[in-house]
């Protein structure tokens, strides 16, 4: 039996609203004991001791939105490199988007991802499967068989299903299997002519705009469909105040609806595109400062359930292009924690509420037992210094891709150790 005792920690557990000094004992990959006064009097016998030196010890982060390049674009990211990147970012589990080549729309591919990830990735990888075959938005994927193979949710990732009829049928069928659907909200026709948020800034730059309404229109439609079908619906990324208001109303009406925001949309706004910086070209687009503030308030109020990295590795050949031609997407696994912590340092959101949206809430959505500092739960943990200052340098990233819009930015929060099932998978030197 392997035993590791984490002593002198600042325990943060959103599930029990615990934020206090204490200790935690890991036995055979599971949390064997945890508590504010644990190890106060005596160090445990027969255990390796890790002195946390007052740093925060929390459940490992659970990221609901990560793209990898495996299979099909391994030069951008493999399951192994995504695992390294996640571990360095304090992320112990992530849900993988099915946008690969081939698309994960077949039970055999779910099995492939699970096996490859188990063999090569340092963290837990939960494959999401396509909601429609080939992500084409016309014929639903084999949700039942995919779920049996281990797909945790169904999503066309960065695509909105244009046909209301197909979306309705997908939601009805998903409800049949009590499956979670992760939607993207961007009216395809409105979005087809733009590359960034519509407004004065885009107009001045001469870049086609995507109006905030493109998001609200789809979310409004989808809320009606959720009401009709009873499906579990999660908006993968909310970016506008208008859409968040619609979500809040749907929640108030008791609909089974949740949403997440990406770290990019919490920290950046359209102005961060600056001189056509393609690393800041993401989908949905970075929005106005008012929208960004609404996202921060959504996290504070709990209208937004989860914070995601929306990690999307892109290579120079897809990013070193004129803005309109460049691919969407930004890496984010290694900046997720400091970006989220900026809400604590700059907007006064409590540490525990930020962590709640990075651990417990995503775990609940995926119906996982992780995300808690509870006896018997998997020992997936992150040890970090919430206040440590740093300058973001993508060269240091473990990810194979370096397309970070946070390059050169001063942030606070540094992961010093990441533990998956009791094993340390990352340790800062």
């Amino acid at each position: 039996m392997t035993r590791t005792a984490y002593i002198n920690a600042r325990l943060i557990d959103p599930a029990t609203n615990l934020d206090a000094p204490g200790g935690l004992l890991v036995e055979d990959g599971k949390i064997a004991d945890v508590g504010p006064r644990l190890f106060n009097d005596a160090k445990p016998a027969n255990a390796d001791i890790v002195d946390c030196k007052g740093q925060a010890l929390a459940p490992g982060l659970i990221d609901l939105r990560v793209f990898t390049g495996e299979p099909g674009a391994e030069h951008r990211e493999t399951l192994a490199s995504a695992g390294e990147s996640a571990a360095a970012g304090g992320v112990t589990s992530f849900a993988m988007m099915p946008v690969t080549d081939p698309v994960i729309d077949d039970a055999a591919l779910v099995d492939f991802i699970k096996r490859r990830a188990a063999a090569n990735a340092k963290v837990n990888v939960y494959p999401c499967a396509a909601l429609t075959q080939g992500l084409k938005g016309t014929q639903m994927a084999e949700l039942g068989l995919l779920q049996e193979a281990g797909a945790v949710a169904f999503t066309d990732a960065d695509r909105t299903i244009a046909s209301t009829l197909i979306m309705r049928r997908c939601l009805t069928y998903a409800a049949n299997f009590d499956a979670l659907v992760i939607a993207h909200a961007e009216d395809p026709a409105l979005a087809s002519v733009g590359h960034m948020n519509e407004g004065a800034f885009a107009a001045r730059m001469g870049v086609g705009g995507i109006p905030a309404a493109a998001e609200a229109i789809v979310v409004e439609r989808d809320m009606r469909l959720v009401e009709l079908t009873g499906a579990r619906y999660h908006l993968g990324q909310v970016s506008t105040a208008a859409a968040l208001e619609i979500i809040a109303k749907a929640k108030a009406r008791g609909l089974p609806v949740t949403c997440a925001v990406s770290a990019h949309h919490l920290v950046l706004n359209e102005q961060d595109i600056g001189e056509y910086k393609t690393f800041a070209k993401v989908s949905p687009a970075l929005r106005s400062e008012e929208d960004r503030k609404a996202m921060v308030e959504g996290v504070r109020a709990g209208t937004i359930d989860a914070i995601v990295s929306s990690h999307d590795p892109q290579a120079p050949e897809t990013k070193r292009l004129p803005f309109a031609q460049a691919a969407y997407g930004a890496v984010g696994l290694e900046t997720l924690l400091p970006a989220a912590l900026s809400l604590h340092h700059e907007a006064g959101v409590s540490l525990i509420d930020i962590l709640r949206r990075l651990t417990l809430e995503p775990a609940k959505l995926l119906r996982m037992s992780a995300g808690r500092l509870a006896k018997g739960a998997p020992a997936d943990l992150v040890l970090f210094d919430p206040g440590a200052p740093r300058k973001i340098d993508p060269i240091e990233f473990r990810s194979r891709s370096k397309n970070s819009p946070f390059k050169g930015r001063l942030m606070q929060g540094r992961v010093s150790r990441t533990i998956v099932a009791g094993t340390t998978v990352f340790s800062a030197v």
Partner: protein
Amino acid sequence: MTGLFARQHLLAIAPLTRQEIESLLDLGAEYVDLNRQISKKRDTLRGRTLINLFFEPSTRTQSSFELAGKRLGADTMNMSVNQSSLKKGETLIDTAMTLNAMRPDIIVIRHQDSGAVALLADKVSCSVVNAGDGAHEHPTQALLDALTIRRRLGRIEGLTVAICGDVLHSRVARSNVHLLTKLGARVRLVAPRTLMPAGAATWGAEIFTDLREGIKGADIVMMLRLQMERMTGSFLPSQREYFHFYGLDREKLALAKPGALVMHPGPMNRGVEIDSAIADDIDRSLIHEQVEMGVAARMAVLDALARQLPNAERKV
């Protein structure tokens, strides 16, 4: 025959009383015996003209009605849509009026649109039998199913019947729910949510979206044909997924009552809604018996309707 069924048309099961249904089943049972004799011919409908007007392709229903008419001594004529003048632009009602002018006594009609048979029945002076209209009703199928169950198990009252599959597009399911509930059976409807009609919970049947749950303890498992030809838009991901969750195989059938019987209105999609091992199992499958009962049930219906025709000669 008690003569309880006294209508000009048979358009649906919904308006019928339990007594009307039982009188038709009693008459049907007599014809089953007749059909098993060497001489199957009666002259009940001698001199009468029966037209089978099929706007939708059909093998078993059309031949079943044709045989029923012939065994009762009627002159029968089959008309299917690809030979009809509808192709030349004639309206549906004009076609019916034209046929009506030829003075048939009974027209058997199948049409792809719900309500189309009733529309035609309104316009003609002869008797009309609905041989299936859209996703509305298929009354003679429900009668033959009931006849099959009654002969096999001796009763319908108190039985648990699970009707499984593509309920949304199924007129067979609708007619059977009406008939079986009127006769005191406990009816369950089992379908994935995309193939379960909105409001089915108000039909008097119990609703299940999981086949294993839905057939648990059932006396009769009635499988429906997956109507691929009626599906526009994405109702299901694939046939293999459908078979995995909603196809009847030995493993799932084991959850029903021991010895539970399996029915299917045909034509079957083997390996989609039903495994061949079940379909061909003579101890469990009533599928061929259903076809046999079909002729008898239709003879009963034609006989009963003929008794209401003007100038009917009452038989002793």
